[in-house]
């Protein structure tokens, strides 16, 4: 694919009007929590941006991230923007296969060395490189090799960002995140299982607009999308504050749309844009559909003690432990009490009668 044309040219070729373009820029700005004054700058930058080469590597993954991306809002401005990059390598989407496919990757790497964007989905097995290979190349080797010439890396999905489900206990493959392997490149984590399509494109837009990676949180996520917790933006939040909770999935509270905290919602500890951006063309998001947030954009969300148990809940069976402890405590208490009684009895036995002649010490 050619990457000679600017984004503006491509968009016009595709019949996108100036107005539609600006609308997209405004939407992007708002999504990234940028002030409206930034819209012209985004427009100008995108207008001039050259279609960058993008190499997409899929490791231990389920293709859910790609599904999210491709099935989102089609045909939409995100779809167009997708067309505006030069996706030079992507297992699922590229036409080429086998040797040709790998050649495409190598070619893109050579031609755009130092400038291409590397997108990774899926985690990297480290227990044994043979657990996941592409064209005989281990994921680890391929990642290290491809990362060398990348301008920036975008870890799409929780697996690439934090190890995700392959990393979940007992983690047979020794799955790790991109950040565990690559230390010398700017890396943007776009976690989620899957991430929201619009967020993926939004991150790319930002990079195209500003030529730099966006501001990230401590977990490497763009603050623009991951700056607020689901809980903070959740439309059911007032129920939480008022103490109105659904106790089961079919009780009155659930029907009335009360807070799902007691059903294990991870909203309070999950940072993502679901509650505002929503899914399926802004239709809804899991909580809106009556299901608690799983916390999929957080590290180790699979090992958080169960999807239907609140994050503050004991993981084990405390009741049983308590019963044993009470039993043992009762036995120990009675035993120690008996020792004390015996001690008192001994003291009583050792008592020597105090008479009026015993009230002063000798000497």
């Amino acid at each position, binding site marked *: 694919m050619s990457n000679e044309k600017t984004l503006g040219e491509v968009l016009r070729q595709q019949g996108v009007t100036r107005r539609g373009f600006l609308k997209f820029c405004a939407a992007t700005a708002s999504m990234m929590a940028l002030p409206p004054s930034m819209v012209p700058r985004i427009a100008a930058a995108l207008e001039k941006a050259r279609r960058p080469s993008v190499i997409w590597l899929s490791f231990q993954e389920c293709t859910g991230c790609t599904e999210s991306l491709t099935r989102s809002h089609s045909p939409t401005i995100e779809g167009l923007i997708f067309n505006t990059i030069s996706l030079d390598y992507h297992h699922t989407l590229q036409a080429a296969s086998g040797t040709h496919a790998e050649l495409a990757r190598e070619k893109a790497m050579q031609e755009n060395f130092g400038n291409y964007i590397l997108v990774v989905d899926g985690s990297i097995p480290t227990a044994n490189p043979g657990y996941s290979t592409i064209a005989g190349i281990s994921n680890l080797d391929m990642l290290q090799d491809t990362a060398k010439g990348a301008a920036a890396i975008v870890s799409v999905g929780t697996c690439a960002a934090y190890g995700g489900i392959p990393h979940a206990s007992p983690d047979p493959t020794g799955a790790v995140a991109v950040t565990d392997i690559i230390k010398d490149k700017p890396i943007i984590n776009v976690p989620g299982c899957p991430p929201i399509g619009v967020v993926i494109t939004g991150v790319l837009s930002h990079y195209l607009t500003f030529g730099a990676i966006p501001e990230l949180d401590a977990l490497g996520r763009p603050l623009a999308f991951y700056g607020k917790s689901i809980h903070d933006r959740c439309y059911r939040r007032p129920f939480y504050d008022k103490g109105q909770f659904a106790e089961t999935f079919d009780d009155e509270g659930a029907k009335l749309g009360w807070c799902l905290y007691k059903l294990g919602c991870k909203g309070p500890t999950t940072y993502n844009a679901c509650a505002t951006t929503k899914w399926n063309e802004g239709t809804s998001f899991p909580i809106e559909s009556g299901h608690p947030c799983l916390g999929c954009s957080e590290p180790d969300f699979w090992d958080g003690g169960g999807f239907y148990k609140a994050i503050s809940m004991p993981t084990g069976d405390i009741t049983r432990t308590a019963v044993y402890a009470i039993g043992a405590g009762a036995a120990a208490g009675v035993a120690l009490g008996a020792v*004390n009684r015996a001690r008192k009895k001994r*003291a009583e036995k050792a008592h020597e009668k105090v008479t*009026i002649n015993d009230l002063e010490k000798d000497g």
Partner: protein
Amino acid sequence: MSASFERGINAFKEQMDAPVAAFFSSCVRCGLCAEACLFYTETGDPKFTPINKLEPMRRVWKQEYSFWGKLTGALGLSKPVTDAELTEWETLVYDSCTLCGRCSMVCPVGNDIAYMIRKMREGMAASGHAPEGLIGATQRAVTIGSPMGVKLPALQAQIRHAEKDLGFSIPVDVEGVDYMLLLSSMEIMNFPEFISAVARIFRHAGVSWTISSEAFEATNSGIQIGVSEIAAELVERIVAAAAKLKVKYVISPECGHAYMAIRWEGPNLIGRRYDFKVVHILELLDELRASGRLQTSGKETQRLTYHDPCQISRRGGVVQQPRNLMNQIAADFVEMPETGTMNWCCGAGGGVSSNERADEIRLKVFNRKKKQLDVIHPDAIVSACSNCRIHLEDGLEEYEMDIPVLSLTETIAEHLVDREQKEGQQP
């Protein structure tokens, strides 16, 4: 044999029981008990904080009776109590605690601190840390029969004197009567009017009573110094006399700790129940009043207040009776602020008055009583304990307050309706 540190520690161990353990376990060191103790409020010295007075005993409890204490003890992390510490605590346990139990009413977790001080004194006495004055009183109580050395001839002289004044005889060693009256040495020595007053009231009310020549002393130095065996011996004398005279009741006189000793501690000291009942003189008087057998005429017009002796009201439960009696004979009976079971101690109970070393502090802390009196300005104070009376007089003198102190029983006797009149009224 003599007192020894080991015997003292052993006594501490003997004294531990569930209440003590619960109390020590519960203390959060909030310091509220300090504000309930006149020895703290009037000196401002935190060492007088009631719970601090128990510190050596608390450590013995912790080290001997709690698993955590035993564990730290085994690891050499806890410091055993020393004899020097007991010496240091001697003044806190005997000189600056009257066992008044006001702290026990205030403690938010419910610690009965006075209950524990009483127990702690067992160990202090056994370890030779009792004050000289109390040792002397205890020795006299056992050998002579009175802590003040009052012998039978002295009582007999007072009785003769009273009989002459009264014009009728006072029953001594009369078998088969209902009541046996006990007296405190203080009454025999300092307030012999009490004997006449009781005699007049009982004659008026038709109470059949007697005084025992073998056990007339009500006080019990044993419970003050903290030696249960001695206390028991003194109680046994009364029990024997009561049995000999076959009385139904034994009357505890106007004395605080005597009531505690004979009414509440007595049966537990001797390890068996009595065959008779113990009543406080005020209980009996109120009963006579209620049943109409005690009739008074006229009321004191002076502004009178009633000082609750701690062992009679807060620790003894005779709270309402004196008030009924006061209302019977006083037109202007006014309560001190914080009265009844919350009354402030005069500062000399619990053996403090027998202990010369405590003279200075007991007068100093009387200031608390002064503050109470300053609020109501009574013309006279009525009380029901010779020791309270003497100390109130002492304290009032010290603070240059001109308020007479009266005995409730004696004041009632002043208001008795004439016997002839009373008989005339009866149908």
